């Protein structure tokens, strides 16, 4: 049997994406594990604001404390969710922190020093997208939004006033689940290592699936074709959004990639490319599926596409 001619190139792209993303995934899991060891129970996370506006903003602001790209943020967001952090705070972090961190802001400035509006518009746009997604996902009950294992662990760490006895499947009767009081004692280091390694191995396999999908689509779909669609204002935004979904590069370097075609596209399309990739792309789908149920994932993806399209359109009206 003869392998298709595109397969060696797709295999190389797959390896490039995977090997580049693995260190960032490791950083995220290490930070998540360290947080659970240093601050067992995560009481401080539960003190994040629950206000519909301040919640997402507080979560987004935590990005400054974690300069990692989107792959590394997933395990940290999972840790926030299971620790009982307000949903808005955890989701605000998940969706905005990949842009609102010093490395990404610095790389955007380094790539576009002559376009100061972009330096302001990118973080602002990320906050707007994160806020919109938080409000949108708040329409779903947590049972329909979060994966069952995340939800079960989250219920155990939420205060009794926040959940009903029926929602909390354990922790009150019987020896197995730990109550918040027990969980607030520092766990043995080996337990933290054990749980973090399990999480890393699971995330790595999901990352493999995402990278394989992204590599195959990139190889079979000529990028030039997407950019050729990009002459018209709306067409250019849609084309660059599709490109960011397919390329799946880290938010810490996507500004340099955008630089290579910035002259060929509208300003709104450029911003759309820089906003959408950190929230959702082919590589991330599997990782986000670890937190969100399919319905939540579909709503988040659809909401992100719509929010970014509207922001791109507005920027084109402003800048063109």
């Amino acid at each position, binding site marked *: 049997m003869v392998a298709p001619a595109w397969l*060696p190139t797709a295999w*190389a*792209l797959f390896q*490039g994406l995977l090997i*580049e993303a693995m260190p960032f995934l*490791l950083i995220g899991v290490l930070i998540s594990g360290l947080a659970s060891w240093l601050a067992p129970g995560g009481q401080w996370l539960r003190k994040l604001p629950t206000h519909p506006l301040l919640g997402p903003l507080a979560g987004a602001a935590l990005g400054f404390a974690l300069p990692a790209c989107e792959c590394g943020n997933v395990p940290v967001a999972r840790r926030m969710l299971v620790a009982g952090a307000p949903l808005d705070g955890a989701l605000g972090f998940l969706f905005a922190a990949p842009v609102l961190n010093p490395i990404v802001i610095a790389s955007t400035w380094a790539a576009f020093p002559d376009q100061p509006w972009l330096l302001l518009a990118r973080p602002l746009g990320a906050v707007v997208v994160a806020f919109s997604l938080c409000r949108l996902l708040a329409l779903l009950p947590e049972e329909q939004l979060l994966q069952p294992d995340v939800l079960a662990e989250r219920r155990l760490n939420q205060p009794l006033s926040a959940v009903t006895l029926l929602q909390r499947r354990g922790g009150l009767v019987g020896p197995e689940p730990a109550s918040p009081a027990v969980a607030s004692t520092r766990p043995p280091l080996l337990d933290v290592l054990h749980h*973090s390694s399990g999480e890393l191995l699971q995330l790595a396999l999901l990352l*493999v699936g995402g990278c394989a999908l992204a590599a195959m689509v990139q190889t079979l779909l000529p990028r030039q074709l997407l950019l050729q669609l990009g002459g018209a204002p709306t067409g250019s935004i849609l084309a660059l959004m599709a490109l960011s979904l397919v390329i799946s*590069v880290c938010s810490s370097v996507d500004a340099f990639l955008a*630089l290579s075609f910035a002259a060929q596209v509208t300003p709104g399309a450029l911003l759309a490319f820089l906003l959408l990739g950190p929230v959702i792309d082919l590589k991330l789908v599997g990782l986000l599926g670890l937190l969100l149920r399919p319905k939540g994932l579909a709503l988040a993806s659809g909401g992100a596409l719509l929010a970014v399209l509207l922001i791109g359109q507005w920027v084109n009206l402003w800048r063109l």
Partner: protein
Amino acid sequence: MATVTATRLRAAGLALWGLVLLRAFADGRLALLLRDVFHPLVNLAGMVLLMLAVGLLLPLGRQSATIGPARRRDWLTLAASTLIALLLVLLPPNPSFADLAQQRPVDDTADAELTFVLPPAQRSLTDWVRLLRNQADPRLFSGEPASISGFVLPREDGQPLLARLLVRCCLADATPVGLAVRWPSDRPLPKRDQWLQIEGVMAVQAAPQGEELVLVPRRIQPIQRPRRPLEP
């Protein structure tokens, strides 16, 4: 037979991923996949994964009773990780640079990155492209000697270019830059993806957009793909 604990399986999984990253660093494939600046990060991640694997097996302290024997899911995770690790180690990357380049727009940013100008004979293909973007009049460089290497990139509307790929992060974001070559008329055109070292002199020729700089070869030598084929 002693019961295999989930911790031991997880240690094996971490060690596998660590070895994959260290192997990728050691066998030189990173030069084909990632920008140089990321190579130490991959190496460090590989070492950290191995250290974590060892840490899992050491008696670092009391282990809670919730960690029990390995379950079916742990075995499946290890099996999948092993399969992927084996494929990654046994099948090194071998992409077609011409395929990658033909799918992507030409890099427009080269002019922004020119920091100094080398003597003509020392300029790489990318240096020449950056210089031309800064100094649009190709006549200024006519007659200058050049010695450059790159891969053959066919064009739909003309003769093949000699090209290089520029990367910011990894192969996924590589974009091509190329120089026109006046290929000898008494020989067949080179094959796509063939790496060549060309020595010659720069000249000016008519092009659809006006005039372009073209390399007139004095010596064309097929070479192996360089150890570091990607350029920043």
